[in-house]
């Protein structure tokens, strides 16, 4: 089975039912997307498929139709995405385990809504669970990222 992740083509020998998350983590060694719940309740596994946010724990790899981007390719420590830069500015992460998914969800959201209201931010990110309670800083960081993207 062939798939493209972060611009690289891969050929993996897996059954089509295997969720994309486990292909990424255990077959390709890409560990930015996290296993949290396995039932699309926490959002820690969020990746982009052709720019759309997708819960990779719920997407059988056989149904994958598009190129996959994970947190590792959204930006890097030397070339941060605006959302990642805002996350660092606001010192959002505590344990950090949910933050890959929060950031991927926020980045995709800001692509389609560059000037979100507070209510729209709440709606877009409420399916991403944070057990440490970093929500106030997530809200602030999304607003900062939106401002940063609009300046660019």
């Amino acid at each position, binding site marked *: 089975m062939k798939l493209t992740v972060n611009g690289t083509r891969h050929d993996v020998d897996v059954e089509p039912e295997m969720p994309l998350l486990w292909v990424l*983590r255990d077959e390709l060694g890409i*560990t*930015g997307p996290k296993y949290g719940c396995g*039932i699309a309740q926490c959002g820690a596994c969020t990746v982009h498929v052709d720019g759309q946010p997708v819960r990779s724990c719920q997407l059988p790899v056989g149904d994958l139709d598009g190129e996959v981007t994970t947190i590792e390719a959204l930006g890097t420590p030397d070339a941060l995405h605006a959302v990642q830069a805002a996350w660092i500015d606001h010192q959002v992460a505590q344990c950090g385990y949910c933050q890959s998914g929060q950031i991927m969800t926020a980045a995709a959201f800001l692509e389609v809504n560059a000037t979100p209201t507070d209510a729209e931010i709440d709606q877009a990110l409420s399916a991403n669970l944070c057990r440490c309670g970093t929500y106030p800083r997530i809200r602030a960081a999304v607003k900062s990222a939106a401002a940063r993207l609009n300046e660019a």
Partner: protein
Amino acid sequence: MGRIRTIARRSFLIGSAALLGGVAFGAVMYRRPHKNPLPEQLVAGEAAITPYVLITPDGITLIAPRADKGQGAYSVQAALIAEELDVRLDQVTVDPGLPAPVYYNTALASDLLPIRSTNTNYLADLARRVADAPVKFLGIQITGGSTTVPDGYDKLRHAGAVARETLKAAAARKTGLDTAQLTTKDAHVVLPDGTTLSYTSLAATAAGIEPADAPALRDPSEWRYLGKPMQRLDMVAKSTGAQEYGIDVQLPDLLHAAVRLNPRRGVVISHDATQAETMRGVRSILPITGGLGVIADNTWRAMQAAQAITVEWGPAPYPAGMDAHWQALSDSFTKEQIDSQYRDDGDAAVAERPITAEYRAPYLAHAPLEPINATALVTDTRIDIWTGTQIPRFIQSNISALTGIDTDNIHVHVQMIGGSFGHRLEDQVVRHAVELAMSMKGTPVKLTYSREEDFAQDFTRQIAMARMAGSVTSGNVETCDLGIAMPSIIASQMGRQGFPAAGPDTQIVAGAWDQPFDIPNYRVTGYRAPDLAPISSWRSVGASTNGFFHDCALDELIHAAGADPLAERIRLCNHAPSRKVLEAVGEMSDWGSDMGETRGRGVGFCLSFGVPCAVVVEVTNSAQGIRLDKVFAAADVGRIIDPVNFEAQVSGGVIFGMGHAINCEITYADSAAQQTNYHQYEAMRLYQCPEVTVRGLENGDRIRGIGEPGVPPAAPALANAIFAATGQRIREMPFNKHIRFV
């Protein structure tokens, strides 16, 4: 000596009687220092000046032995060392090090004593030192109890200072100058003419000289890092997917494993793995403690196979349904089951007490977002374990007992932890990983619990019940008699580590008996319920339930007295730092200002882990249910090391406390937890989360930790706000059993 030593070895000291027996010699004997483990790990040219500072020609490593589970422990430990060592944090690597006795936690045991944290007299301090001595003697390396900063505050700065002076001595030897002529800056020794010698270039010389005597620690007025806003060291990695957690460990030829465990925590009566064994990628299926394990070439395949096993489970060692659990608590309010009565002021027993109430708090799962996991590599002579843990030395001894391999040959590589809240104080997952890896010697096996197993096998927060009887006179609270019943957390938790708990369990009344209030007739009684489902420490431990009970009881009495909830708490308060946090939230929230018909404001207070924390919550009683509008929190830790992380810990703690109070519980049916995943255990989501404003105060007499104290006052503040908005008293968590939330 024999007696105290035996007690120290076999029991986790939690009672006053056993402790006071050890005063005479304990402090002397237990002062014996543990050796520095780093030199054994060195090669020529490297220097380990203290157990916390490792310098090689290639770089400087600071050892941070307290686990980081999201609270920022690595960053704060590194900053404490760096402040005296004179290095910038971007010049060093931070490493948890290997477990060693020298990394004992000085601050942990004293918090289990029945001495109010507000009591600072000589005898109280002596008892605290004696309680900490066995922890030092046993080299118990535990992360917990909000102790990382109080434990490391002097110790880590001192390590940095010793290393700095030793490097200066090395520079003096190399240059022939006197150390008094030398200064240090940014990982360099600076000579009088301005030339510099890097610490790394001095490693070989420093390795050959005795560590310098401890100089005086710098006055806080000279600090460059501490007390000022910091950037956490893990923030970039955690924002770019680069942070590796235990669950991300990758090793050559790694195999993946899953478990199927008895949801009632009994034995396996019989099982059939015929179908599972034929599934793709499965290498083996074997019995492990309490269930079965599957080793496969991919975690998902292992989990699928684990689900395909059919099993007949043995019965639970605890009651089947919640009615029996609650009945056991209800039946525990008897004279025979009194565990402690540390607070008994005035005459609470005989006073007229017309106001009564009963409160309940359920079992709660820890459910950190990273499911528990451990990777093990077993050979005939050594075992390597990669896992996120707060108890690395317990793991060494437990795995030694399991395998017969000496603890010196059991290497625990502590990993970054994706949340804990107390979950990683347990090590069952490590036992399972090693049991599986023992069947695959030479091949590393990574075991990941499914989220469902993580919920089912959690050692939860305690279940608890409280009964209040009180009275008021002429506008004031006159009598508060509070009884609290719960099983012993410490006995359950330490029992699994082979340390039977002796004496009363102060956690049964923590966050209630020790509150800084003068009420004329004031009594707090702890009742020890029988052991029920296994329980463990959950963020803020006893205070997570008792803060709710005590503060809501006080709020009811204040209301009955017709007094203002904030003003009466301040009037009753007998501890200046506590009074100041109450006054602070009053000012922050503009307490007393009009809120209109549909809104309400409540205050909650709890002193826990030595930290007074007050919270004001504002809610709206809307057509869709209760909406949380704003939260104001103030806490006093004596001295704030990093105001940015302080704010995060208080805010996060308050959100954690409110979220669970609103909608979380673990209930048992047929002795198995009924909640299997986050759809049945949501806690707070972004849309429900209020604005949170935090203020840090520094009036306390000594430095304290802040990971936990934000939790206990959050739930009562919310309940009291709901009462203010609706007139409805909620005396049971989760609150959504009684009222609807937006």
